[in-house]
């Protein structure tokens, strides 16, 4: 099955786990996600001078809410949207599998799950709870 956004994530090689595709500044170690053709915003380094990096997809939930209304075309609700801190330090927003809001501190893993799209199913990226908050 194809990935919905192959420039953002890839199969990790372990089950359904996904890795996230990033850029690393070779001089400073700064990471940028997503990987873009424009460069690393934190340092101004152009993409051509950056290294490609894979992020583990392991993250901690900072906060999470349930979206109750379909706020964009095709949005299926209820939908859990969380602010996450990746193991590598980047803060981003992701969709959590299921309908029960995880508490802050809950550990999650990026996974590839089938999503319906016009033209057939594709693999999207969501975050799956791996262990509860400490």
């Amino acid at each position, binding site marked *: 099955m194809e990935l919905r*956004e192959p*420039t*953002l*994530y890839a199969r990790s090689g372990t089950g359904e786990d996904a890795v*996230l595709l990033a850029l690393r500044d070779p001089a400073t170690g700064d990471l940028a996600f*997503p990987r*873009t*053709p424009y460069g690393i*915003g*934190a340092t101004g380094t152009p993409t051509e001078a950056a290294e490609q990096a894979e992020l583990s997809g392991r993250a901690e939930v*900072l*906060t*999470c*809410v*349930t*979206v*109750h*209304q379909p*706020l*964009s075309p095709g*949005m299926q609700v209820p*939908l859990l*949207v*969380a*602010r996450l*801190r990746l193991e590598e*330090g980047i*803060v*981003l*927003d*992701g*969709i959590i599998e299921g309908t029960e809001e995880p508490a*802050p501190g809950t550990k999650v893993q990026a996974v590839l799950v089938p999503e319906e799209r016009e033209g057939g199913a594709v693999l999207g*990226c969501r975050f799956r709870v791996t262990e509860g908050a400490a």
Partner: protein
Amino acid sequence: MSGLASMRPVRVVGIGMHSYQFPTDTPYVTLGLTALRQALADAGLQWPDVTMAAIGTGAIGMAAGRVMLRHIGSTGLEVMQVENASASGSSAFRMACMMVASGQHEIALALGVDKFGSAQRAAHKDGIPRLTPAAEIPAVKFALMARAWRDRYGLTPEDMARVAVKNHGNAARNPYAQFRKPRTLEQVLNSNKVAGDLTSLQCTPRGEGAAAVIVASEDAIRKHGLDRGRAIRVLSSVSSSEHAVADEGWSLVEMVQRSGTAALDAAGVEMRDLDIIELHDAFTIEEIVYAEALGLCPLGEGAQQVREGKWDIGGGGCAVNPSGGLLGMGHPIGPTGAGQVAEIVRQLRGEAEGRQHPGARTALAHMIGLGSVAVGHVLQRD
């Protein structure tokens, strides 16, 4: 970022509004010229006296200013269109102030006007797919902020709902507001759930409208015999954008902190001097967080201030969003920032009938624009 302290004084001499309203078939030209003619009459000026116009709009399209203004007279004035998302009207006002302060013009107009429906976001054209497009939707973004404030500071759904009760109550007394009904805490809490703890009455409506503000130099006030007693001084004008910060992604808060400090410093006033703040409350959580970030109270104490009525008109402190804010007055995008200034001028003149904050002398208009950008102005009556 720039203040006005090093330049010649600028004063607001005229304000005008077309009421904010739900989308209609009314052409934007009607909306804009209604506000403009009111502002000219309020100032006691004729249209040819105005030599520069900054038009704040997010959705009308190219050349909105000339297409509109030719119907009141093609006088050869300088016309500039200003798009800065929700801060378009604020940025147009800043541009008009700078034109007068720098001596480029004696009398300048800032006019915000918009219709709902045809705005396009550059973020949708950057060629970068999003991992979670849902999180880019403002209601979701601010629901996450509300939940973070709940987890950090104990903010409750009732605390947020009280902001909507206050602002809908203020809007009910504002003839230019889109919502004119007072709402109870129960009505706000029981309105449709949108995202997280945000309900529909805690979200700004979609709409249209216009706001016009005319600024002038001291020389122009003398030359045209304008009423200096009603001319409100613009003490500072600042504009900035986000810095990257590591604090769980809430760089918006840091931006508001810096912007508010800069606006007050440039004006030579302190937070305790402010009698009124008009700020960007597209969602209830924003009023609490931004008022805290601006320094009205320490972070995490905004909810207590709302519970105690300290941000109310006549509440004994600094009234926040006496116009009704974006929640009650509305947020048609282009006009919103100019509308904040118009409300403040009305309040500082003592002319805000039915919603006058007693003794108001100094005020801050603070606006956020998508991206994010922040624009702040401090105004004061003599």
